[in-house]
């Protein structure tokens, strides 16, 4: 194995490691931020300032007894969390997170920071995230519980209605960039307008960015759109009957999906690793900073906005979000045609 292959494998391993850690860090960040928003400290006992709380959580979840309700479907009950977490990890496979680098001259040819560079990368992310809903739907069905079943039904209906707006918002950016490769989309956002405004697509696509963010919240089943597990109505929704490690995989998939959504938003709308002051070699610092800001907004929204009513969510998705996305797409297409002709 030569140095180049080793470094490629190292990058893949690093991406995997970052995603696993992202879920642990996000649990801590969520509890801390929620605490501060509610004028509390949040977790404070384990480690300095409660920093080791995720570790304690994981140990606790591993030690718990695994239960499977009577009448549950044995195979699908086991398969559901695996599908969830596999789709969450796989979705990140085509998301680039840094510019090309030679590792300070270590390599003759630069390598790309990211797992794989596919020429239909945007679509791959979209396709794989849409497979994640099977985990939730199957968990709901296989549990043999009415609350779980309703959670699963809601998840599938919600996914169908939000995926349309989500895909239409993506299509507008793809039209601007003229490419389906995430790396090329990022690279088309380098440079500045008028000397100070970065050429990020969020300035060309403000409506698209808002639609993407709202649909992203609905896709990851986060509050205010967390209907599959709405605890006041459905106990815990699709994961009511789960315990121990199988239960832990569902929140983990949710947090990894959040990280993927934020990373894709950064690549598509916020210029990826492009930013002032830092040399391109250190672009990943910009990337991580932008992802961090979006993740903070996710958590901020969750603890600020109350949950919608389910029928409101459906009519909002079909009657407001989707038409807005279509109009945005048509206007973008007309403008692209006008300025390129």
């Amino acid at each position, binding site marked *: 194995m030569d140095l180049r292959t080793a470094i490629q494998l190292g990058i893949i391993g690093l991406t995997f490691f970052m995603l696993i850690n992202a879920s642990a860090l996000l649990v801590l960040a969520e509890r801390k931020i929620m605490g501060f928003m509610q004028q509390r400290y949040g977790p404070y006992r384990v480690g300095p300032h409660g920093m080791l709380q995720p570790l304690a959580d994981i140990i606790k979840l591993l030690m718990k007894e695994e239960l499977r309700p009577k009448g549950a*479907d044995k195979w*699908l009950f086991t398969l559901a969390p695996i599908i969830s977490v596999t789709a969450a990890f796989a979705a990140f496979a085509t998301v680039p997170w840094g510019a090309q680098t030679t590792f300070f001259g270590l390599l003759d040819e630069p390598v790309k920071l990211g797992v794989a560079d*596919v*020429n*239909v990368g945007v*679509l*791959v992310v*979209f*396709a*794989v995230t*849409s*497979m994640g*809903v*099977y985990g939730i*739907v*199957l968990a*709901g*069905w296989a549990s043999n519980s009415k609350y779980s*079943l309703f959670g*699963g*039904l809601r998840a*599938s*209906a919600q*996914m*169908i209605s939000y*995926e349309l707006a989500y*895909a239409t918002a993506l299509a507008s950016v793809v039209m601007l960039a003229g490419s*389906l490769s995430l790396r090329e989309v990022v690279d088309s956002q380098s440079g500045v307008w008028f000397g100070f405004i970065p050429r990020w697509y969020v300035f060309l696509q403000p409506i698209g960015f808002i639609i993407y963010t709202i649909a992203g919240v609905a896709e990851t089943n986060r509050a205010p759109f967390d209907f599959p597990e709405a605890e006041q109505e459905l106990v815990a929704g699709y994961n009511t009957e789960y315990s121990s490690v199988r239960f832990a995989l569902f929140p983990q998939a949710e947090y990894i999906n959040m990280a993927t959504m934020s990373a894709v938003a950064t690549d598509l709308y916020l210029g990826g690793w492009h930013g002032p002051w830092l040399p391109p070699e250190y672009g990943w610092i910009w990337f991580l900073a932008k992802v961090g800001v979006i993740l903070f907004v996710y958590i901020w929204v969750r603890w600020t906005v109350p949950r919608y009513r389910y029928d409101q969510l459906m009519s909002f998705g079909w009657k407001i979000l989707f038409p807005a996305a279509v109009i945005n797409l048509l206007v973008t297409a007309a403008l692209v045609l006008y300025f390129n002709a």
Partner: protein
Amino acid sequence: MPETLVFYLLAALAIGASAMVIGQRNPMYSVMMLIASFGALAALYIQLDAPFVAVAQIIIYAGAIMVLFLFVVMLLNAPQEDRAEWDRSHPLRQPGVTRFGTLMALLLVIELTWALTGPGRAVESGAAPVSSVREVGRVLFTDYMFAFEATSILILVAMLGAVLLARREGEQP
């Protein structure tokens, strides 16, 4: 050689999963097997150097249509097919239905044989690959414009029909 091996592996997976779809008593498992079959097909498309078709297959069939299938199966609340209903009086067990099914299966076998062994059919592949999304879009909106528009009108009609059926009597839209 490894490519051929992967091909046979995926093809076996696709055929096996498709056979399991009709071999399952539990409709939930049938849906899962159909998803597996679509996944294997998508992998075959990737092997044919058509990543766009593969991803479209996943998004449309495995991602959207099968979610609707699951939705319907869950609402049917039929985890096990009722064996008592499956007796001689079942409409699908009548002699006419059986004969029609046998005829269709025979026709399919003849068509497949003709398509696979007919003159100059399998040779045309290997021409310019139409893998780029740009090329697919250009061909779709120029050469196959009429077929594309006809399909979209068909889908529109189906949508209007669904809305009409879903609306209750005397209710304002």
